[in-house]
């Protein structure tokens, strides 16, 4: 996972949870959705997506179900569980706190010290 230079460590799980919280998605769909909702700013290394999905599934934060894709192929669709929803809420809140704290820190001017 060291290749995810574009992504802060630990944020991939959060983004996946967010992506599948909107609508059940297959793996490739998750990739596209994250790219879409981040305005193409975030690029996820494709190789690290699946281990992350499997880990989240193992932690029972998401569940997988086989279904039909848009072009009628069998695909595995992931959706959020209740525990996953709770985790997403916590992580979002935590991230927001962190982000605003860092933003505040970075906006500090010499006069304010």
């Amino acid at each position, binding site marked *: 996972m060291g*290749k995810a230079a574009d992504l802060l460590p630990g944020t991939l799980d959060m983004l996946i949870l967010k992506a599948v919280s909107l609508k059940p998605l*297959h*793996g*490739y769909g998750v*990739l596209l959705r994250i790219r879409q909702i981040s305005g193409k700013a975030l690029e996820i*290394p*494709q*190789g*690290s997506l*699946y*281990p*992350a999905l*499997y*880990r989240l*599934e*193992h932690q029972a934060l998401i569940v997988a179900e*086989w279904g039909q*894709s848009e*072009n009628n*192929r*069998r*695909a*595995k669709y992931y959706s959020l569980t209740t525990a996953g929803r709770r985790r997403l809420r916590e992580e979002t809140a935590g991230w927001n706190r962190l982000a605003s704290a860092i933003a505040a820190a970075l906006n500090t001017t010499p006069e304010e010290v």
Partner: protein
Amino acid sequence: MLKRFRSLFGVLTRRRDFEDGMTEELRFHIDQYTEDLMQSGVSQAEAARRARIEFGSLNSIQGDCREARGLQFLDELRRELRYAARWLRKTPGFTLTALLTLAICLGANLTIFAVIDSVLLRPLPFPEAGRLVTIFNTYPKAGVDRDGSSITNYYERRGRIPAFASLAIYRYGTAIIGETGSTEREQITRVSPDFFSTLGTGPVMGRSFKDEETSYETDSVVVMTDSFWRNRYQRDPRIIGQKIRVDGLPTTVIGVLPPDFRFLSSEARLYFPLASSADQRAPLQRHSGGNAIQMIARLNPGATLAQAQSQIDAQNATLEVDDPQAKMMADAGFRSLVVPLHADHVAAIRPTLLLLQAGVLTLLLIGVVNLGNLLLIRAGSRAKELAVRRALGASRRHVISEVLVETTLLTLAGGLLGLAAAGGGIRLLSAFAADRLPLGSRIAFDARLAFVALVAAIVLGVLLAAPIAWFNLRRPLGDALQSESRSGTSGHSTQTLRHSFVVSQTALAFMLLAASGLLGLSLQRVMEVSPGFRPDHILTGKIAFPSKNYPNAAGRVAFTEKLVDKLGHLPGVSSAGVVTNVPLSGTSGKSSAAIKGRVLRPGESPRGNYSYGVGGDYFKAMGFSLLEGRFLTADDSRHGKRVCVVDEDFARYYWPGASPLGHQLFEGSEQQTDAEAFTIVGVVGSVKQVGLTEETAQGAIYYPYALHGDDVFVAARTSLPPESLGLTLQAAVRQIDPDLPVNDIRTMETRIADSLVTRRAPALLAVLFSAIALLLTAIGSYGVLSYAVDQRRREIAVRMALGAQPGQIRNQFLSLALHLLAYGVVLGSIGAWVAGRAMQTILFHVPAFDLTILAVAAAVMGLVTVVACLLPSYRAARISPVEALRES
């Protein structure tokens, strides 16, 4: 067990689903991406190529996915299993030794455990069997430890002891079943009506006995076991109400017991009411148990053994108030003891079984230490390989799990073989000894045993892995990598560990050897005991008289006289006689006698002594020695002369230093009228009545059979091999009474041998265990010394190049072996002393610490060790310096 397999199977099939799903999912991703790329105008080939590249290595992603799902562990395990299996295959000598060691040690342990489990551990096959107790009278000061219970006891206690939910009595016996001409003797049990309900079971068909059926007029009813119903009546469903002939009397079948019904070790297939007359229930008969009738009871829920005991004691005290015998019984130390039924039934065999288990556990310990040592040596030879792998990134966890997988694979395979060995052992036991052991018929190869084997194998695997893992992780990597030899240098601490393994192994084997020596010596001492008669060339058999055809003594006397006369005239028979109980018959009871005109000294308790009725030339047939006066003759019995013969012990107690001839005595503990007195006409040598190890000489009185009659044993002395007389004996009996079978036909020598089976079998097993232990120790010593020689090849070569003599080199290694041996023997002597102390209860006239035995054991141990160590020592001395130095 099945569940486990199913769950393992589940994991494996789910695993395949998982793999298939993952492959499909990743392929879907790549295909979708390829399509998207193609839509943006890239050629198909290029799109596929880019999709692959951007996706990354499929293999490593799949690995990551598996790890994310916690499946990596299984893969690693599989790899390690393969690796371990390959190692084991590559070293067949080691693997075979290890598997054989485990198979023998675990097999022996599992076999003995199966016996302990079925005899000591598993509850009796009745509901809440832990609440079943037995109650018996004891008169320790009169030398009567166990006298069963009387019918009076039963009627006095029934319903009056609050701690008991119910109470019952029973008496083992035999009966003649069937019509004239096709009779057979069956083992039976006579029981009180509440016997089955006390056990918590009862007939599955028909009913149990009623209180009205306990008189002699109404007791012709029978409850049969399932096996009797099956074999004799082919499970006839209309059996209830049918009549069968028992001792010649028609008897109505009223019930059939469930198939699994078995009371303790009883072989009885028919149950009858235990009938009694009003006289037999009277207070005067309270102490007339004679060890024939036994009592069982079921404790109420919540009631304790102590409560039951105190209630019985209290009732006994109340009853004593108006009992004329009370004073005498109190002098005899009378008490009624309440003890758990199961524990009581197996009490005699318990120490022997526990000792055997301790013995095989020691054997297992030796085997494990041996394996540990061999594994450690092997680990030494792989040290460098391992060091390289660790340098290349194998983690500590990995090193440990690899060792664990290897040892556990070994012990599991060994456990499986051990289980198979135990299966054989149990079969052997069932074939030879099951009927000699209480509850022996329950010994079986079952799922419990398989589970114990599995647990034992896993525990052993972990135990064996520990020192190897320690060895592998202990040394700094650099050392192992830098050492010149392929196998790496041997550190001082591992050497110490190996040596201490050999020492402990030697000590344990020495201990086993000494213990089996003690058992063997004890057996020898028992066999040296003279039974008091000449047991060779005597055939004996039991005849039980049915009361219908032999209602009184006259009929029995007439029969025995005819029989003795017939036997006496057979070719090859020198003398024949009858007796009410032959020595070592397995049953015995004592009664008391009063010497005419003698009052008990203050504090003296009445003595229980054996009393027998004898007819024909019994004393001559058995080879008793006559010390004074004369033997009883056929004439005494025929004319009902009131004479008797006493044995040496009896004479010495009452007339020390004087002759008892001419003195008179009464049967029973009371003085009676002169007409009842028996005059002593002879003194015979004492014989062992119950067993050769019998220590307390209680004394015996022999009355004429006509005056002291009951069922008999017939004894005939012959110049032919006595076994050959069996059919002749049966034929002779049938000629006089065609309906009278003879059973329990055995020579006196067989009876003696049979009475020693609980001593001989453990001694033989102990010898077998020690032999295996010696072999294991030899393997261990050989292995360690060989390894030491290999390790020091260079050192030896250098020394030899510098002028050391081969003899010096050889002696150096031999002296190492002897040092280890000496430590082992010293430690083992302490162990042998502890073992000897623990064995005191089952040893006969053998001290816990016998110097001769220890010396012999040390000599055997030394011989085996030296032989095992000679080969490696000589090899060391033959090392060629040139070759050894060139090799490295």
